[in-house]
């Protein structure tokens, strides 16, 4: 039995791709939901282009175990941003 994982992204960027493992998330506004993420170890990955000097923030809401946010992160001086975050979903 999996768990729904909500991901939020804040930032005025020119391109944004966010995925959990290899599944790209479809955003409605600032949030996207991955349905029935199975128990175990997973990767939240993101990547895109934005103007240097701007910031963005990404986070996960799947309490109680998967609650995390990056805080405000700067876009790289070359205009790219991205990262990967390991998170875990426990068996219910």
């Amino acid at each position: 039995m999996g768990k729904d994982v909500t991901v939020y992204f804040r930032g005025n960027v020119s391109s944004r791709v966010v995925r959990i493992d290899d599944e790209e998330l479809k955003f409605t506004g600032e949030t996207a939901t991955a349905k029935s993420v199975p128990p175990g170890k997973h990767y939240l990955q993101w990547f895109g282009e934005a103007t240097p000097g701007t910031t963005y923030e990404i986070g996960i809401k799947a309490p109680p175990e998967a609650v995390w946010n990056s805080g405000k992160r700067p876009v790289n001086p070359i205009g790219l941003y991205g990262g990967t975050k390991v998170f875990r979903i426990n068996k219910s």
Partner: protein
Amino acid sequence: MSRRFIVLASIFQILLLWTSSATTAADVAQDCHGSAVCQQSRQVLIDPSLASVAGRTDFQAFASATRDDTSATIEVGSKTKDNAPATGWSFKQALKLSGPIGKNDSEADLATLEGLQDNVKLAYSASIRQHDADVVFRNTTKEEYNAALCRAHQLETLPGKSAPLIAPAFDCTKGELPDDAELYLDDLRAEGLRSLLDALDLGHGSFIYGVEATYAAEKKYDFITTESLTKQSEKHDGISLGAELGWLPYRWGIFFVGLSYRYEEGYKAQPEQDICAPFGEDLGALSCSKAAVGAPSKSKKQIASIELRRYFRGGSLAVNPRFSYDFENDVSGVRLPIYFLKDGKGALNGGLAAGWRSDTEDYTLSLFVGTMKNPFK
């Protein structure tokens, strides 16, 4: 219109725009949920003049004013997001409609050497982008991305840390990361960043190849014949075909280089002159008016251009110098737009542009502003 007046008028318009920008602060805050992030410029390749292949794909509107004329442009386009080939190519196409507003003077945009600017025009453009960053990422597996970030973080020790986030002995090749791993591209500098870009096939930057075809609708030319001084008119349309190449070299910071070639064929009205005729019964009384003398002449141009686009101060200022040369008529032009006005969401979309062309040795100073808002979202 004197140049002094033009400068004063431009400064006045900028002050008005500053004022109107300030009134949108509440909207900005609402759109951005109070975040300052949204209030900053967001797009690497924003092109407020809509003149370059490196533009955006959503609905855009643009207006410009020069000393003699104003013009408006709208553009709508689309970009492939899915089913991109594994090479990281993306395809973009756009339709652009533009036309003059106000006076019908033919000197609307001197420095770009464009000859069809006083016609209503419909243009179709298509471009492909090689190594498009988000397409490249979509074609990178979870394991490949993890491995690239892992290796990059083995090469660098972040400020305030005593060792790399990923221990040099850790095996990154499997694409698995430690349970507590939290790796950011934005932390990387120099060696780590080069390693990541190479691993993602972005080491040579992103290239854009584009073509554009434009049809300039028929325009009526009124003139007086040189032989009999009788009024006549003719209608002529025009075309232009162009090709462009752009390069966004990620490795060297945020700037863009573009090369273009355009062939134009159209018509140009003869210069207006004062034409006077006897008026009334009084001897010596004349009635005078301005009119083009002679039929419009066919005009051909072959224009090559190079442009640079560079952002400064975290995206709050940008310059976009462009040099153009017309091989057909041996004329060169320089245009230097400076972008410092932002739209309601903080993206640069307007400013001042200075221009010069060699045949008339005439300088121009123009104000441009665009809305850049997508009404379909």
